[in-house]
């Protein structure tokens, strides 16, 4: 290790650590999650073991014998010698004797009934709720609804219960509440008609927005190029602001412009046009505004980049063109545009990727509506995994959605690396030792 190597790696390591933690690790996790059925119900961090009432119905289907199911379904609480002995050890022989007299041999369906029975103790009453709860627990013979932290605990419990050997494995599997590995997410993605619509939406979104960004960015750059610098600066500022304004505020301004009592409606009312929500009226309206909202943000990037490459074109070329009698359009068409090929290509490829994966503005503007018409792939991933009205967050499926984007992202950027001559970027450092 030379000093330079050490210094290089040392200098890189803080960034490397951050990237590992919040990029690489998440990518790996996303890949893993995509192959699980993880959701709110399963939890993220592994599950426990529990058989609930509703599980009983599906147990036979997974190969648990009828008699085992009957065993599990049996009454929950029993006053019998074994449980009474436990009770006696904890709360005294007298109480146990009294309870035995009252309810000896009785079975109770649920904890509430058991507690009621315990309340009947007259001579040695259990006064505190807490004590009755503890006591009731001692009489529990069923494991229904009980959660066991580990596999072993559960195995022990069902063995105690007398579940036959041959059913134990299937039962344990069925009792696991955590997530398991599966390829079902991808089958789902493949089968669901909605998936294809999201993909199509993404394509529409990227193509339209990109077209607007590049076309409009070019227009802004070219038109401000010809204007006196003060005027040009004003227009550039107007178009630059959307880029730095906080998205929440920026979208709010659009909401105000478009809602039923907003600016557009108010302006059009005198002309007898019914006020409508211009952003959400139909899918076409929604798309128009999605493209405008994103486009006004994106166009400024094109504007800045194109402007600077325009400034790099020697003015003499324009003078020459003017001398040749070219009008402005011809200058643009034949002198300027041909020299903008690379910036245009760059913006196009760069924004394709970032548009494909961004959803913030759509989330704030239409949240995918109306009728999921503007739900793009990335937003679907977010909704599936993290936000839906029902509250059942499907992390696994969401990760599968995300994984598709990750793969597209890697493929596209690998392609761009080749295309934009990566090797030229990595000229060797000139100080060698």
């Amino acid at each position: 290790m030379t000093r330079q190597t050490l210094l290089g790696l040392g200098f890189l390591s803080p960034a490397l650590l951050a990237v590992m933690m919040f990029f690489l690790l998440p990518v790996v996790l996303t890949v893993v999650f995509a192959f699980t059925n993880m959701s709110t119900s399963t939890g993220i961090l592994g599950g426990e073991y529990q058989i609930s009432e509703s599980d009983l119905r599906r147990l036979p289907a997974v190969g648990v014998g009828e008699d085992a199911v009957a065993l599990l379904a049996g009454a929950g609480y029993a006053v019998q010698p074994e449980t009474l002995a436990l009770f006696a050890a904890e709360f005294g022989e007298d109480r146990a004797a009294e309870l035995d007299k009252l309810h000896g041999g009785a079975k109770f369906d649920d904890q509430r009934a058991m507690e009621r029975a315990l309340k009947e103790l007259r001579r040695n009453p259990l006064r505190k709720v807490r004590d009755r709860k503890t006591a009731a627990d001692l009489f529990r013979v069923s494991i229904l609804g009980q959660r066991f932290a580990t596999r072993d605990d559960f195995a022990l419990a069902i063995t105690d219960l007398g579940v036959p050997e041959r059913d134990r494995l299937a039962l344990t599997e069925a009792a696991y509440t955590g997530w398991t590995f599966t390829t079902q997410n991808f089958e789902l993605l493949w089968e669901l008609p909605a998936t294809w619509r999201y993909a199509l939406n993404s394509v529409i979104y990227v193509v339209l927005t990109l077209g607007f960004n590049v076309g409009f960015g070019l227009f802004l750059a070219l038109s401000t190029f010809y204007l006196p610098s003060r005027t040009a600066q004003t227009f550039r500022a107007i178009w630059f602001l959307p880029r730095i304004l906080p998205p929440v505020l920026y979208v709010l301004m659009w909401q105000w412009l478009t809602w039923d009592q907003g600016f557009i409606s108010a302006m059009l009312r005198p002309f007898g046009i019914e006020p409508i929500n211009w952003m959400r009226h139909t899918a076409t309206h929604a798309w128009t505004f999605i493209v405008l909202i994103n486009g006004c943000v994106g166009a400024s990037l094109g504007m800045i980049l194109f402007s600077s490459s325009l400034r790099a074109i020697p003015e003499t070329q324009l003078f020459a063109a003017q001398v040749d009698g070219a009008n402005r359009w011809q200058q643009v068409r034949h002198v300027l545009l041909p020299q903008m090929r690379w910036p245009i290509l760059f913006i196009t490829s760069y924004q394709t990727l970032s548009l494909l994966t961004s959803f913030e503005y759509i989330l704030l503007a239409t949240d995918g509506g109306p009728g999921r018409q503007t739900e793009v792939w990335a937003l679907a991933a977010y909704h599936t995994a993290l936000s839906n009205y029902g509250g059942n967050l499907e992390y696994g499926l969401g990760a599968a959605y995300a994984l598709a984007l990750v793969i597209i992202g890697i493929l596209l950027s690998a392609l761009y690396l080749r295309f934009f001559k990566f090797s030229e970027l990595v000229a060797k450092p000139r100080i060698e030792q």
Partner: protein
Amino acid sequence: MKKMTSALALIAATAAAPVLAEDITITVWAGGSNDSDHYRIDNIRIAADMLSREAAIRGEELNITVEGKRDFDGWDGFKQAVTLGAEAGNAPNIVVTSHLDIAPWASAGYIVPVEDYVDLDAWPLNNIYGNLMEIATFDGMQWGVPQDAESRPFFYWKETFAALGYSEADMDAMSARVEAGEYTLRDMLADAKKAVDMGLVEKGYGFYPRVSNGPDYAQFYQSFGGELTDTETGKLLFDRTAMTEMYQFFVDAVDAGVTRRNHIGTEWDQWYSEVANGKAAFWHGGTWHYGRYTGKEGNEDFFGTVGFTLIPAGNDAGRANTVTHPLVYLLTDQKDDRVEEIAAQLVAIASEPRLNALHAIKSSHLAIGKAEAGLDLYSGDRWAAEATEVLLPHANAQPNHPSYGAFSEAMFKGLEAAWTGVQTPEEAVAEVEAQLTATLGDELIVR
């Protein structure tokens, strides 16, 4: 050696202290709550005060700090926050949320059954309506305590209704006619169309439904004969015919010019102000709308201007109905069992009739128990009294099923697609069915 001595001194000191002061912080997160719902959190505060006093009488020092939060980014944001918080091990101690969350959250182990900590047979929990308590159970266990009750009535604007030719007496009889299935959604549609055609209301304002997904749409599914669960197996039920007819109903409403095609996504505030001031002929909402109409929207003569009934039946297969969607207090799983216990006791105290009545009347919800309904504050409130009488007996709740969220979501998205004309009702139903059978598999029965 020195360390040891000081450790011993510490033990001695603590042992010598006569009363052990206990400091506990309880966080309460309430979803979907507005300003008028502040008693959801404040009642826990009051309960904390009571509990501390009780402890003081026993000679214990119990200091409870209650921290509340209710400004979430809608229900989605709230549920996301609770879920992720629970995974991260810092979930709030008490959550006030839809009873529908019990199933998934219980399966995930985020919440603990309230029955493990409080005596359900003791006051005040034994006074809560049985059917409401039932709504907070899942898999045979009592997971939560109902926090409020409500139901979702159908409203009509009396002035418009009168102009359509209905008399005062007709209006008085409306609830009964709807209940008996004599006045159906189709009749309503015809009346609404008439109202639009006569210029009583603007186009698109004949029938003015809820602007976003919610339990309300399950009501229309039921109106057309749909059932949400199969009583036998407890599985979710997808009734193709009922679903198609329900979608068709909304499409017809749009086609008739009675409802706007782009209605979904209308701003809530705009919606409230419009229905409260007679811009719409028919709409539906919730019992808590009363507070909003008479308060913020300034409708001073609610009973003179607004009539309410059950959601009418849609066809012969269906029934007039209303869904109650009580919020429940749930306890989350914490490392320290003592905290769960305190939280449970707070929930129990907060369910005292007087405390709950504060919430019910302040936020125009319904009582959760018999004693509460008998309190002056409650019975003196005309809306609470009438709504309880007309609606609550017929209210049913949506099922506590881990996958009901997905079901409801898909149902609404399909409706939205049909409504906005993106798909025909048949196409939409087929797509929803495909999606649900794929995602729910075994848990769904398609009929």
